[in-house]
């Protein structure tokens, strides 16, 4: 798999990371090196091996259906750049 500058630009845009045009070739190159490294894994024969989902054999932890959290509007909003009347206030986003 090869990443060109167009793909690099698209990935950056989807991730909302601003990358200047002149930086794109270097970014694409970096992606390619990372992917090349990962692709080495494809050389291992995993025929008949169960996919591993966890390093330790454990079961997904569950919680009971009980309200144990919440009720701290002030804390939730304390990092917000702007909050009004209990809401986060953000630049207008409307379809």
């Amino acid at each position, binding site marked *: 798999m090869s990443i060109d500058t167009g793909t690099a630009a*698209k990935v950056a*845009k*989807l991730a*909302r990371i601003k990358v200047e045009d002149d930086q794109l070739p270097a970014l694409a190159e970096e992606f390619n090196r990372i992917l090349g490294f990962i692709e080495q894994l494809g050389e291992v024969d995993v025929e008949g091996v169960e996919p591993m*989902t*966890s390093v330790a054999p*454990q*079961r*997904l*932890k*569950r*919680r*009971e*259906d*009980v*309200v*144990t*959290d*919440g*009720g*701290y*509007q002030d*804390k*939730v*909003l304390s990092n917000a750049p*702007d909050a*009004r*009347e*209990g*809401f*986060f*206030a*953000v*630049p*207008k*986003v*409307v*379809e």
Partner: protein
Amino acid sequence: MLDLTFEPPKPKVIAGAKYDWELVIGLEVHAQVSSNAKLFSGASTKFGAEPNSNVAFVDAAMPGMLPVINEFCVAQAVRTGLGINAEINKWSAFDRKNYFYPDLPQGYQISQLYHPIVGEGEIIVDMGPGVARRVRIERIHLEQDAGKSIHDMDPNMSFVDLNRTGVALMEIVSRPDIRGPEEAAAYVGKLRQILRYLGTCDGNMQNGNLRCDVNVSICRQGAYEKFIETGDFGHLGTRCEIKNMNSMRFIQQAIEYEARRQIQIVEGGGKVDQETRLYDPDKGETRSMRSKEEAHDYRYFPCPDLLPLEIDDSFIEDIRASLPELPDQKKARFVTELGLSEYDASVLTAEVEAADYFEAVAAGRDGKLAANWVINELFGRLKKDNKDITESPVSPEQLGKIVGLISSDAISGKIAKDLFEIVYTEGGDPEAIVEERGMKQVTDTGAIEAAVIEVIEANPAQVEKAKANPKLAGWFVGQVMKVTGGKANPKAVNDLVMAKLGL
């Protein structure tokens, strides 16, 4: 299990300028899981709380917070799956669906793209007595709901409330088996009914607890059958997805509009673009949501914060054992065991509360008579007062007694209506009221005969007319009923009037 037989409905046909067209529709319904706490946090799901008060740090996506699944939400999804005869996947897994929006603080929604918890099932969508559409369900997966953005509180800002963020949703995906706008609305109605019977979603569409995306395409007649035969989507037209509707009426209007729009494009020699559209109820039209297109690249990947969800047979069987009787079974039982018409059975099973009410009225009594009284008198009266069955001033025990009094001929049908009104407005024991107020039907022929003779003797002119025209005998029956305060047995009165007039 009891089953009523049915035929599929005819697909809707829309005449274009050149050809006749059919519709092919598939729905994705998002149903909010009824639970106390959210899918991955201990925050409350309660509707209408102060903004951002039902939010845990997990929901606000604070760094380092980890999701822990609510087992009851898992049980609710399994319960829903069993309720639509679906395959339950004992191994399922969560994925991240990545996109940016202010009401999604994580920057991704935890969902189940690759391994949903529920597989294929089906829903029988009733379209009328003996007519129903079998709609196949492709899957049900669990996912997080997003928060709510409010755009009309400030001219320049949007306000975000994260109370709904992280609440569990079931996305219920149908196959493209729905063939018209009415069927689509009926499908949502039937699904809602099943969810409410199961108690897995309250079905409140106004609050957005049940909303849906509708996929619509058009095809020429005969093409759909080829698609069903081969499974090749190439036989169908390009589909458009209409997003986020929470009203049955709008679902129908949007599909109708969208189909006509596509027909116009295709007949004009154009091509339908596969895209996401929004229905504008004020204008009655759908429009493209172009901005959504690029965001469609969701870059799904397995959620590294969550191990696969494994459930065992006993978990599933415990839920199966606790399933209630579902609408189809209940309806079939009402028809076959209580002798109701399919129509009446449908009306009575529409809401589980109404079905329970009816069963209490009908217990040990005439089922048909009980159905008539619940549907015609009680529902009619409640509707007049804008009341729900759960707010009925007449209890099932009271109505049951009224039905019993009619069946035993203790009161006439007409008096029963008066009695019902008394019980409805004043309350009280119907049997005692009948005794106290002397409402018992007069079956004593001597008393009725006396009344008949009295009326005949007082109206010699009418007697002559009735002898010339026997149809006028009804007037005497009415007079006698009036004299006896409606308590005389109408059939006995009629027989006596005819005999005394010599007709």
